[in-house]
């Protein structure tokens, strides 16, 4: 049994690999404390699955928080885990997009799952998941309902601000002026999709594309991005935000 954990800046995802079968264990908020998150996962593993730490052949961690983990475990880079996972999901995958809470990443991979080139935005929140969270909080809606609400949009708006902090104020102004929430969210999605599309231009990209990360669960954003890029995007399944955790478990199972 191998435990794969992706300690993200916002959410920690964990999967269990039992004799080649994957099981999604949990998704918990990281709360800026990777060690605490990992302990909670082990506790949950024991309570829900009856698995003790000693039963695990290996714990593999990846994601932002991996360097802060003081447990003994193997650590792998997020990019390697994502690439490994993408090839396993879709062997013809040559471009991986990962839209996380605090960074967006695009990378090209070869048939063995090796990273050839990558482009990353971890400098500005305007293309990241935190941007959406801030706007959804301001509009008092949930991530889950956002795509559905935005589908009712009847007018194309353009956001004037790229900065997440300023866009939040702009959204509040738009609401006060009587603009519909549907139109505002659609404009926000469009703005995010444009930023992600710009990121993909930094490297040479090839079909097929696999998209992952929390944002990839939003069907409308994926559709808007497909429109801008003029390409089909394969959403990582079973859940797009588990891609790195699954990759970590897969890498862990291959090591001697």
């Amino acid at each position: 049994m191998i435990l794969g954990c992706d300690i993200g800046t916002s959410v920690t995802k964990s999967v269990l690999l039992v004799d080649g079968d994957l099981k999604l264990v949990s998704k918990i908020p990281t709360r800026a404390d990777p060690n605490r998150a990992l302990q909670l996962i082990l506790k949950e593993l024991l309570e829900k699955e009856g698995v003790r730490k000693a039963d695990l052949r290996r714990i593999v961690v990846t994601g932002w928080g991996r360097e802060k983990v003081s447990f003994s475990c193997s650590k792998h880079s997020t990019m390697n885990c994502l690439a490994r996972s993408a090839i396993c999901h879709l062997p013809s995958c040559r471009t991986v997009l990962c839209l996380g809470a605090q960074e967006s990443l695009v990378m090209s991979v070869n048939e063995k799952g090796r990273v050839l080139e990558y482009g990353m935005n971890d400098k500005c929140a305007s293309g990241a998941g935190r941007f959406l969270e801030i706007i959804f909080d301001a509009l008092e809606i949930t991530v889950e309902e956002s795509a559905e609400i935005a589908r009712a949009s009847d007018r194309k708006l353009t956001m004037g601000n790229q900065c997440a902090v300023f866009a939040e104020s702009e959204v509040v102004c738009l609401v006060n002026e009587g603009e519909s929430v549907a139109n505002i969210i659609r404009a926000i999605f469009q703005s995010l999709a444009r930023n992600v599309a710009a990121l993909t231009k930094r490297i040479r990209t090839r079909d097929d594309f696999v998209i992952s990360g929390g944002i990839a669960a939003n069907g409308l954003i994926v559709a808007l991005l497909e429109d801008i890029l003029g390409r089909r995007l394969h959403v990582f399944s079973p859940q797009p935000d588990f891609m790195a955790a699954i990759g970590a478990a897969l890498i862990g199972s291959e090591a001697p």
Partner: protein
Amino acid sequence: MTVFAGVDVGSMSAEAVLMKDDSIIAHSTIVVKPNPVVSARLVIESVLSQAGLDPADIAFCVSTGYGREKIPFAHRNVSEISCHGKGAYWANPAVRTIIDVGGQDSKIIRVDGQGHLTDFVMNDKCSAGTGRFLESIAKILGIRIGELGDLALKGEDPVPIASICTVFTQFDVMCFLADGRTVEDVCLGISQALAGRIKRLGSKVGLEGAVCITGGVAKNLAVVSAIEKALDRKVAEISVDPQIVGALGAALIAGESYSGQIADEGNV
């Protein structure tokens, strides 16, 4: 009696200045309301009542700031860049460079030996390096923005802020707190991060002559000291509250506009 008024409605605060015979007779600052017109009315009422005057006593009023075009009682509106240049030069004629850290933007303004605007650079695209940056961090720390400076002055070992983005810095701050770093050290690190952004902005236009800081952030001693360190120079003092410099410049321009108007009428 000829009284001139300047009103500066910003994104976080609004200020009004009344001037007579080239002296400030009253000034006032308020926290803005969502509607800039309401903020402008409130701040002008406040400054008039301080001076014991009526709206009719104002010979000419100039508005500035982001809501400047909407102020119904202003005779003219002028960009905040011109107003800050004008106001700072009046408050200290040695000043050639003005750093204005506003609620929603930051600017560096250059003026010549006559106080005329010669160049400027502005960041209004990214909240890093603006008052909103400090406000967003204060929120995470659960303190008021006014407390940030005092806490930073007690900091000993500033946390290193690697991110530029305000949103990501909020997250970094949460991590520092989780790691057991003190609020004081975080505040000091934040002050230095803001100073770093100002330094970068300054490198685009160059800093010459005496440099002063205007806007509410100029009252934050920790930020001022961090800017002095980052720029490797002393910041010049100005003779007025740094927060009212925009409104002061507007009042000065009101005086000039009024004189111009009288001269024009004389020519007819």
